[in-house]
């Protein structure tokens, strides 16, 4: 129960799967998820998301993270956001 994190989908990501947020459990075997684990998990859950994820940023607790940084982990209680290319202004 306490090993859950929230994931938020915006713009094209939300439109692709018709979900704006989910609460996801971290697999019982680990205490946190790498960003690669997260990508695999989301791609498995949502086929339509694969291409969009490739072009999106992640933010954890409202902070952009470097997708290639293997030291970054999603931990229980985190708020993860899928940020497709922004287009404000």
């Amino acid at each position, binding site marked *: 129960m306490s090993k859950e994190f929230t994931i*938020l989908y*915006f*713009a*094209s990501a939300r*439109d692709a799967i018709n979900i704006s947020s989910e609460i996801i459990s971290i697999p019982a075997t680990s205490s946190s998820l790498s960003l690669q684990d997260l990508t695999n998990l989301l791609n498995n859950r949502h086929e339509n998301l694969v291409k969009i994820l*490739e*072009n*999106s*940023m992640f*933010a954890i607790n*409202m902070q*952009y993270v470097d997708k290639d940084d293997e030291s970054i982990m999603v931990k229980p209680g985190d708020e993860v*956001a899928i*940020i*497709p*290319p*922004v*287009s*404000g*202004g």
Partner: protein
Amino acid sequence: MEKTEKDFIKLTSDPLILQDIVDLVKDDQAGAISTFCGTTHKTVVRLEYESYIPMAEKEISSIITDVRSKWELTKVAVHHRLGIVPVGETSVIIAVSSVHRNESLKAVEWLINTLKEKVPIWKKEIYYDGSSWKENTKSKCC
């Protein structure tokens, strides 16, 4: 609003009024006010903006901190409209005051460019025959 407030950030579904935003940055010490307004083109039926609001506010606050480290500024306002923005109406207004003109001119340019790269706001263009999510050219992603 405190008397000492110098930064003004707003994400709102209300129309943006240039004069109101300029009035926020007016200051007896500042001889220069520069502004930028972004407006819906005629080529679309309308625009719809959405945002990850708390993060957008945090990012705007962070780029205001950055811009203040680059130039000596008096007051800074960044207002962005969300939801439906009809043709001809304004989606974003940036206003900056400074003692001398160069600082506010440079700051406005840097702020709008950086906002378009970094702030989690998305624009959907609605055409007569469909819609699409836009991507800013230098959007930070990927």
